[in-house]
Structure formats: structure tokens, C-alpha cells
């Protein structure tokens, strides 16, 4: 009933997980002999870091063997291709909070690591300006999903950041009401008739008008324009965070209360609390001056951004980033797995192994394949 939050992700690095399994048996025997093992470790001369590196390499080697065995046909052209792959280098991938983004960025990072041998650092940070600044400063190289049409222009103009094509996902923003309202008031989904229902949405917060719960700060919002254009008797309330919106919708659905708010897909919350979209007349977005008023949110093809440094580096990662493209269904599959309790790494690995054709299309031109 309640919004399922994303699973708690372990902060333990991957190598440690591998090493844990590797060392568990040995450790279980030794706790009583701490001093002795101390001496042993000292004689061995390797500290935990070195041991971990070895363990990871061993485990990776085992995995590779296990994977290659059943696919003998593919194995014949593998060696020569791998020999051609250029040195990838060190790159930073921006990580944003929403789960759909996590899915895309994790798959991209893991393909880059496993197929191209890139050293990818994933950097958690706020979207938009913050990330563009980081790209300009050189600490982040890739945004795999950006919703804001052109808000990056200033950074592009200065030369450090470039658009790197669409990622294949299509975002749909809209105004929503809980499903029960659409059932009780069938024409409420027609935005132009919203005024008839404005009274239902009045709260102490909205100053006698209907409350129009607007999207969080970083998101593309045009609520004020829509209200003006249709002369709606509604008052924009800036919710300030996605948590606030989800809270509003959850309570509205559970307690059969009215509520009109901003939401978007792809988003997992829509699978848990049924919402109903309020549609406004579509608008011709070719004429941007016209579009500023009478409109609904358009479908947004989501954009990849990359640093000029990466795109001009000749690194195979640049090719991978430019080629990366998948559908809403793909992203939702990985996002759902993450929500179901898998770590992002596990979810990405499952999708990658089930979709090698797609992945290999991304890898075209790099000389590598999965």
C-alpha cells in the first residue's frame, strides 16, 4: 500500500564481497589465534588491500571461465577482438537519486568496466547545475539521463559540456489525481474542465482556490503557466521534495481525499498507487512562443550529456556513451529488480547477460563485445 522505498544498498565495495567469500573459511578457523595470524600476515608481506586485489582477480578469472565455457561458438573471435580494444581510462559517471537513473547509470558503468576495462567512478550528486559544474570542473564526465530541455545551454556554450544524443527513454510529466477521483468524476481527466472541481481541492494551504501540488525544485515545471493559460482557479503549492508529493498522493489514495499533483513516468511509484492523468490539450511544440502557454507537458526524449574531454579523448567509453540507448521497458525492468531487493550491480548484471545483443550494439566500433 505504501510507497516501497528503494532497497538499502550496501556501501561495501564489490571487491570486499568477493574477498569475504574467499577468506571466510580461513577466518573462521583463526579468530583464537589472532596473534599467530598477525605474524603470518606480516611474513606474507601483503595487507588487506593486496589480498583483496588478488582475491578479486581470482574471482573474476573464475567467472570468466564459467561464462565462456557454454558459449563455445562465441569464444573463437573473442581473443582477437579484445586485443584491439583501446585503453579506456578513468571516467566519472554522475549518479542521481531516482531509481530509473540508477538503473541506466549502473548498466552503462558495468558494461564500460567489464567489456572495455574502464575505471569508472560513480559520483552521487544533485542533478542540473550542480552536475554541469562538476563536469566543467572535470570530476564528472557523463549524465546518462537528463530531463531538462536545454537547461545546460550555458555550459555547452562555454565548451566543456556536450549533448551526446538521446538515451532512448521517453519521460512523461503530467498532473495526476488519485484513481478514485477519475472513477467518481469521469471528466476530471479533461484538464479544461478542472475549474468545475476546483472546490474539491481547496485546502487551508491554497487560499480559497484549489491546491495544485507542483513538482520538486529540480524538475521541469510549468504549473503557473498552465493555470494562467486556462484561467484555472488553482493555487500552485511548491512541495519542495518528491517525498512531499508521494506523501500527498499516498494519503489521498488511502483516505479517498482529493489531491492534484505533479508526477512523471517512468517512475515505480505509479505501480504502487494508482494515479490518473489529467490531460490538457496538446500543443505544437515547434512554435516555442506559442508553447509557453496553452499546453500540456510534452513527452520528453531524455538526453545524455558528456564532457568534451571524454568525447574527444578517443576512448572506447566515448563510443559506448554515444551508442547507449534503451527503452522505457528496459529501464523499468532493471529498476523493478532493484526495487525488488537486488543491488544495482546484480540487477544490471542480470539485464546485461539477458540482452547481449543490445549491449553488443552499444559496443560497436570499440572492438569489444560481451
Amino acid at each position, binding site marked *: 500500500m505504501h510507497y516501497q522505498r528503494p532497497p538499502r544498498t550496501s556501501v561495501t565495495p564489490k571487491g570486499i564481497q568477493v574477498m569475504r567469500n574467499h577468506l571466510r573459511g580461513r577466518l573462521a578457523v583463526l*579468530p583464537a589465534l589472532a596473534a599467530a595470524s598477525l605474524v603470518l600476515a606480516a611474513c606474507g608481506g601483503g595487507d588487506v588491500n593486496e589480498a583483496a586485489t588478488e582475491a578479486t582477480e581470482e574471482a573474476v578469472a573464475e567467472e570468466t571461465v564459467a561464462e565462456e565455457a557454454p558459449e563455445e561458438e562465441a569464444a573463437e573471435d573473442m581473443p582477437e577482438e579484445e586485443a584491439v580494444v583501446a585503453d579506456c581510462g578513468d571516467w566519472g559517471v554522475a549518479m542521481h*537519486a531516482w531509481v530509473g537513473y540508477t538503473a541506466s547509470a549502473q548498466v552503462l558503468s558495468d558494461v564500460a568496466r567489464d567489456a572495455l576495462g574502464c575505471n569508472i567512478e560513480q559520483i552521487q550528486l544533485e542533478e542540473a547545475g550542480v552536475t554541469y559544474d562538476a563536469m566543467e570542473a572535470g570530476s564528472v564526465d557523463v549524465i546518462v539521463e537528463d530531463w531538462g530541455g536545454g537547461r545546460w545551454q550555458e555550459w555547452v556554450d562555454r565548451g566543456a559540456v556536450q549533448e551526446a544524443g538521446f538515451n532512448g527513454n521517453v519521460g512523461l510529466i503530467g498532473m495526476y489525481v488519485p484513481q478514485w477521483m477519475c472513477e467518481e468524476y469521469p471528466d476530471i481527466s479533461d484538464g479544461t474542465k478542472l475549474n468545475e472541481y476546483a472546490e474539491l481541492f481547496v485546502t487551508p494551504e491554497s487560499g480559497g482556490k484549489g491546491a495544485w501540488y507542483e513538482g520538486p525544485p529540480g524538475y521541469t515545471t510549468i504549473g503557473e503557466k498552465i493555470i494562467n493559460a486556462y484561467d484555472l482557479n488553482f493555487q500552485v503549492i511548491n512541495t519542495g521534495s518528491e517525498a512531499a508529493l508521494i*506523501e500527498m498522493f499516498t494519503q489521498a489514495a488511502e483516505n479517498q481525499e482529493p489531491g492534484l499533483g505533479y508526477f512523471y513516468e517512468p517512475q515505480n511509484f505509479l505501480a504502487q498507487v494508482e494515479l490518473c492523468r489529467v490531460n490538457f490539450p496538446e500543443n505544437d511544440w515547434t512554435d516555442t512562443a506559442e508553447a509557453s502557454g496553452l499546453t500540456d507537458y510534452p513527452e520528453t526524449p531524455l538526453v545524455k550529456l558528456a564532457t568534451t574531454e571524454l568525447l574527444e579523448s578517443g576512448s572506447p567509453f566515448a563510443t559506448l556513451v554515444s551508442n547507449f540507448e534503451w527503452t522505457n521497458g528496459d529501464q523499468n525492468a532493471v529498476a523493478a529488480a532493484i526495487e525488488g531487493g537486488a543491488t544495482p550491480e546484480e540487477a544490471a548484471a542480470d539485464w546485461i547477460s539477458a540482452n547481449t545483443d543490445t549491449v553488443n550494439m552499444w559496443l560497436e566500433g570499440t572492438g569489444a563485445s560481451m
Partner: protein
Amino acid sequence: MSTLESLPAWMRKRSTLVFAVLGVWIVLGTVFSGIHTLELSTATNTPVTDWFRELAASIRGSRAESPLFVYFFNPLRGAIEGFIELIRALIAVPASGNIIPVIGWLGVVALVGYIVYASSNWRTSLLSMGLLTACGMLGVWTYTMDTLAMTIGAVLLSLAIALPIGIWAGLNDRVMAFIRPVLDLAQILPTLVYLAPLALVFLIGIAAATIATMIYSIPICVRITAHAIRSLKAGPIEAAESMGSTRGQMLRKVQLPMARRTIILGINQTTLAALSFVVIAALIGAPGLGKPVIEALTIRNVGDGVVAGLAVVFLAVMLDRATTAAVQHSGQLPPEGAALVRRRIGLVIGAIATVIAIYLSRFQLWAAVFPEELVIGEYIANAADAVTEWITSTFYFLTIGLNENFTIHVLNRIEGLLANTPWYITIIAISLLAAIIGGRFVAILSAVLLGAIVLIGLWNDAMVTLTQVLIATAIVMLIGVIMGVLAGRSARIERALKPILDAGQTLPAFVYLVPVLALFGPSRFAAIVCGVFYATPVVVRVVADGVRGVPSDMVEAAVSSGSSTTQVVTKVQLPASKRSLLLGANQGMIFVLAVVVIGGFVGAGGLGYLVIVGQSKPELQGKGLAAGLAIVLLGVVMDRIAQAGARRNEKKPA
């Protein structure tokens, strides 16, 4: 005021005047409601906010070229980042390609334990080690170490700057007079306000976060250090002077040793301030516990936020107890005889054990990475989720009803008066009130600063914020006085309240933002509740202190003359601690302002929302910066009125 003296006595009474102004204001406000309210939609910029936006863009554009950046800001950023990364590499983050930092968890626990033991006693040392281990068991070891590293780094840098300035200001009246206004301003600056400008200059990241933390903690340290030097008794100094000591000798041999206790107390306060700020600084990229705390808000995840918040509290308790114990220890005489031998043996054994622990933590996995088998964070997170869920589902109708009634009958009316009245009437009314409470100077200052907010173009949003601050402060005072009196009168209640107050003061406001949101929905009332949570502990402390400070013979005289408990409280203890009450009100208001601004995250609108939206929407960045400035102006107006009122009260004979 001289003009008032010509008036008859009843008109000179201040409360009468206050009510008269309020009455006229309400009448005018009702008649002219909705006219000239200067309401502005969020997406609209004003000339001033446009100017800020262009300024921000030009700063961004010149980061790579302007000499100021190339030769000053960028190297400074690099140096600070390098320094903090050094500490992080030691205890928090592995170097590239490695899996553990230089010292693993067991080593850190042992090292902290040893440092605390060496500077105080074994009991505090055990407590510190226990609390650190508890952070590991919460499953947030790496985050905790990041926060600890950031705090240590920021404190060291702060002390390097603040101690010399504080000592100088303690010795030199002119220096003190010069920096006092800066210290005053720093104290009322809401934390959220200077994050954005710093991020603009230093980029999001460790450097900006560290500098922001320093701006917050340096004034505290300067103030206490200067106070420590100033409040020394004249006797020993004069004696040293008469013996012909140079100024340097006197400082080193007499003044600093004598002021040592207070200075260490200052370090204690600086450390706690830095810790609480490092958590907030996650908004501009500080690594550590602030990250899960803020993520808990953005993706609505109470459990993980509570777990991280608990770790912040543990860390705060540890740092507080360790530094407090060090203060006490430094005041004690050195041990003698058997005690000295025992202490020395303890130090040697401790040193050996620490070295072994550090060694183990580098070579043994169980000592390097906190064992997952011991982590119980998830259970606590789930329990916190369940409790929140239960409270929400059980009390939702009650709390929503409370919210609605309060909003309609109190909040909307007061906001209507402040924000929905023509702006010039509100400014005149506030200035008149300032004149009555604080005098002519404060009245002029209020009018000028409020006028500046009008010029910036954010008047209406400022009044929305002011409404929330005033209401929250009133509630805080009500609760704070009741609890403060109880705690001031009974040592038992005080002891029972202490852990709650401690936790309340260190728990980051973001942690309870989400549960409050669940209970009250996205609303201004939610922000007010958060402000009340945050500011009440301070007010309780100050009031309890005041009540305890009332001379006991006054209380006894009242009791023996047959006064009831209520009479003793209302007729003796509260009037006698009036100064503490006013101080508490002022402190409470400043604390409330800091949090009500964060209320922008839960639908409270106002200036706080503009600051937040300015961080994430480039086209509104100028508006966000301007909103930050407006918050500062608002804070100065409120602080000056309250301070001036308190001063005048003192001057008047009781």
C-alpha cells in the same frame, strides 16, 4: 523616548501602544486586504534577481580564467580539498585501487579510545569506543568516518584561524570592537543561506562544505576564546607585569595557561557546531552521514534517515563527552604516587594495544572492514519505518485536523495580516512596533532593511517566512518556558530531560522532516513543527538556567510567606529570570528561522523554497541568492528588535 514623555501616563505604557498599533494594523489590513501585496510567481524574476543571476553566470564563466579564481579561489579549493582528503584517506576512504583506508575500523576505535584515555580517563575512553562501535553496528561505518574526518579537518582549520583571532581580540579592545558585528551577524545567519554562494565560488564538494562549516564554527570559537582571555582576574597579570614580563611572556606563561579551561570549552563548542554543520553541508557535497539523511528526504526513506541520524547523535555525544572530560582532566592536579604509576602503566599498555589494533586493522579483514554479521542497522531502520507507519496511520486524522484548524484560525490570519496587507502598511506597522519595543534606531533600521526586501522583489515570500518564524517562536516559548521552569526547579526532571535535549540539539532537522511530513502533509504547519522541534531544547536550557539562577532566599521568602507553587513561579522565579526569558526568545527565534527555511523542502514555500529551487534550476539561481540575502535581512531585523527590547528592559528599574 523623549517624544513620548509629553503624553499622558497611560499612553506611555508600552503594552498599550503595542496593542494600539496592532489594532490599527488589523483594521487597515482588513480594509485594504489583497492590495499591493507584491505577490510574485515562483518562475518570475525581478531586476534584482536578474542581476544576481547574471552575476552567478559570470562567476561560473570566469572560474577558469579570472586571475582571482586562477590564483586564489582555485588553489585554495585545492589546498583545502587536499587536506581533508588526507584525513579521509587515513580513516575513511580507500586510496584508488585499495579497499580499505590506511587504518581499518578496529584501528580507528582503538586510536580514538587511546587519545581519549590519554586526555581524560578510561571511563570516557570506553564510552567513546562503545559509541564508535555502535556507529559501525548501525551499518554506516564509512559514512561515520567521512563525517568524523570532515569534522576533524574543519575543526583543525577553524582553530588555526579562530584561536589567534580570539586571543588578539581578547587582548585588544579595538580588534574586539571591529569583529563584534561580524560575530553577531554570523550568529544569526541561517545555515542554508551561505551554502549557495560558496558552492558558486568553490563548486559543490569538500572544499565548499569545509569552508561553510568553518564560517559556522569560527565565530563561536573566537567569541569564547576572547571571552576566556578577557575574564581573567587582574591580579596575576598585574603581578607578572610588575615583575617585568614582556607581553609575549605574559601571554605564554600567565594568560594562556589561566584561560586554558575556557579555551578548551570553546574547542568543545566549535567541534559540536562543526559536526552539526557537516551534516547539513551534505547539501553542497560534503561526504558522510548527511548524505543518507538528505536522501531520506528526497526519496522518502524514514528508516535510513533515522539510522544515519542516530549515528550523528552518537558521534556528537562522543565528541562532547571526550572534550568535556578533557576540560575536567586539564583542571585536575596530576596524579601522585601509586595513582601516577597506575596511570603510566595504563598509558603504556594502551599504546601497545592501539598499535596492535592498528596493525590488525591493516592485515585482517575482520579488523579492517566492519563485520557485516554485527550490523543491525537494517532492523533499526525497519523498526523506525514501522513506528512511523503506525504513528501516521493512527494519528493522521488527529494531526491533519490539528493542522487544518491551526492553519485556518491562526496561520492564515497572521499571514494575511503580514503578507496580504499593502506592503507599506506592514512596514510602517513593524517599524512602529520596533520603535515602541526597541527605540528609534531599531525602528529606522527595520524600515530600511524591510524596504530593501521590497526592492529585491521578494516581499511577499519574506512575509510568508516571517509568519512561520513568529508563530513557531511563540510555540517554542510556550513549551520552552513550561519545560524550562520544570527543569529549573527539579534536578530530577533536568536529568531526565538532558539526553532528550542533547539528542534534540544534535539530530539533524532533515531526519524529522519526513515523519513530520507524513503526519501533517506538505504544508506550512509541517515547517513550523520542525522549527519547534529544533529550537525548543535551546530555550529549555536557557530558561532552566535562568530559573536556577534565581537567588534561593528570594524563593524561600516567597514560600515562607505562604505563596503557592504557581505563585512562586509566576511572581518570583519568572520575573527574576526575565533576562534569560528574553535571551531564550531571541535564541529560539534565530534557531526557528534556520529551520523554517528548510521547511521549503516540505511545501512551506516562502524564501526557503526559493533558496532551494535556486540551487537546482539555473534560471532561478539569482532568485535563490537574492532570497538568501532577504533571509539575512529578515534575521537582522528580528534580532535587533529583540536585542534592543531586552537591553531596554534591563535598564529599567524592576
